[in-house]
């Protein structure tokens, strides 16, 4: 039984079918990348998984339960951790309070302090507890967002463009962090635009195109697939010319 099973999932906005009959499955302990040109439906698919939008059609099963209509907070407690594309942090609060939000469900007092210290060390953020998040560097904020998702102790971690806006060094460190989380047994899905980062992760890839699963398989096979290269390079050029952007 897969950890996550998606059947015939569809969602339309206005006249645009952003996600169109997607089937998708993840085994426990997998690391998977989802790629696709701009407008392929990656972000919509991501939001359908976390529950902030509901599908027009199709089913989502997670840990043997139908969660198609479940609210995001329910899914969060079932073990889906999320890092959003754009700064998933609260700029007005301090680093400590950002981490406190996911942790205070189960911890308090010294146990919480210890967990915050542990997370900060892991995220290379030690010493920033009392700083307002808006004052952090961009890469640090991205890590903090990943840390907040980890603080939920997820079974399945969804990362939407975790390296957006990062330099090469930070990107490498992020890759190492993703690998170490995966090695702990967490199932990880990375929605990514940057092929360099996908190569660094070296995980199996699902390609979305026009809201459908276009191809799926090991990284090497996907990279050598002519059709994928065509849509990824060719299509992204024409899509950019038409001005479609990821909804």
């Amino acid at each position, binding site marked *: 039984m897969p950890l996550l099973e998606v059947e015939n999932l569809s969602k*339309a906005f*206005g*006249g645009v*079918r952003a996600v169109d009959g997607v089937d998708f499955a993840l085994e426990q302990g997998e690391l998977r990348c989802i790629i696709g040109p701009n407008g392929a439906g990656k972000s919509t698919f991501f939001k359908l998984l976390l529950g902030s939008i509901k599908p*027009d059609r199709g089913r989502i099963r997670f840990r043997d339960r139908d969660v198609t209509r479940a609210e995001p907070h329910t899914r969060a407690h079932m073990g889906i951790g999320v890092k959003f594309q754009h700064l998933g942090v609260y700029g007005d609060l301090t680093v400590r309070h950002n981490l406190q939000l996911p942790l205070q469900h189960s911890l308090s007092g010294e146990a919480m302090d210890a967990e915050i210290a542990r997370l900060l060390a892991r995220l290379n953020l030690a010493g920033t507890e009392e700083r307002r998040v808006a004052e952090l560097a961009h890469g640090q904020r991205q890590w903090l967002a990943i840390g907040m998702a980890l603080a939920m102790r997820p079974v399945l971690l969804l990362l939407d463009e975790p390296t957006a806006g990062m330099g090469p060094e930070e990107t490498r460190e992020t890759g190492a962090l993703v690998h170490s989380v995966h090695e702990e047994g967490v199932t990880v899905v990375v929605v990514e635009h940057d092929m360099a980062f996908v190569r660094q992760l070296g995980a199996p890839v699902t390609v979305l195109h026009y809201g459908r699963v276009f191809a799926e398989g090991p990284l090497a096979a996907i990279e050598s697939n002519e059709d994928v290269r065509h849509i990824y390079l060719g299509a992204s050029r024409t899509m950019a010319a038409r*001005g479609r*952007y990821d909804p």
Partner: protein
Amino acid sequence: METISFIVGLLYQYADTIALLALSAIGLIIIFGMMGVINMAHGEMMMIGAYITSFAHYAGIPTALAVILGGIGAGLAGMIIERLVIRRFYGQLLSSLVATWGLSLILSQGALLVFGQLIQSVPTPFGSFTVGELSYSYYRMFIFLVAMAMIAGLWALFRFTRFGVRARATMENPRMARALGVDTSRVYALTFGLGTMLGGFAGGLLALTSTIGPFYGMTYTPQAFITVVVGGGAEIVTGLLASVLSLGAIKTIFMNQTNILLGHVAMLVLAFVIIRLMPSGISDWVERRQVRVRER
């Protein structure tokens, strides 16, 4: 004969209610649909239209022209307001709500200070006709036709004119529209001006049926708000039509059977029921239905 006069009475009331809702909401819903801004000073735009109409009428200008002048005056006022105030609050919906409410207070209280409690009202033109024992005003039927014509005109404007295309592009995706060379800030200014102009025009039309004072517009705004909430902002014309037809029906029935207050309460209750079922308003719901039908 009694059933006929009852039905005529009901239809007359329905048309009148629809006209009132459509006229008071049309300017508001354009601005909300296109810019996402709720203009809390909309009632004051209607008030400006009514004041100009009254002053122009008593200056000897033909009434029809006076009403149009009211619309133009409110439109100009709206464009000035957009430039001085609204512009600073793009993307901050709640702040624009509060700022325009402040403006509404200044305008209505300012009018009170300058012109006093009431100004001269304008007589209702056209006379009346009788069916059975009840008499009906021709002017109210005329207003209904004008309201329908305004909605049709709006549809044509967005559909066929260059401004309409630019406006829709701006509404869909302002960043993209700018990249394609649309002067979005001009589109916003014109849209706001259009919305307030229609508000002023409606104010002038309705001024011929009531007394006019500084708080004249405020009596229409609650209904206008309900109409906008039910209609939603996705498809302005469809939303407005669906909203005034459904709200008008329920209000007419309750007004006919009980009183105006319960008519208003019924509208509000219907609004709450509709938002519970279709949180983004009727127009958004219709839009999604259409997509599904097309898919089959």
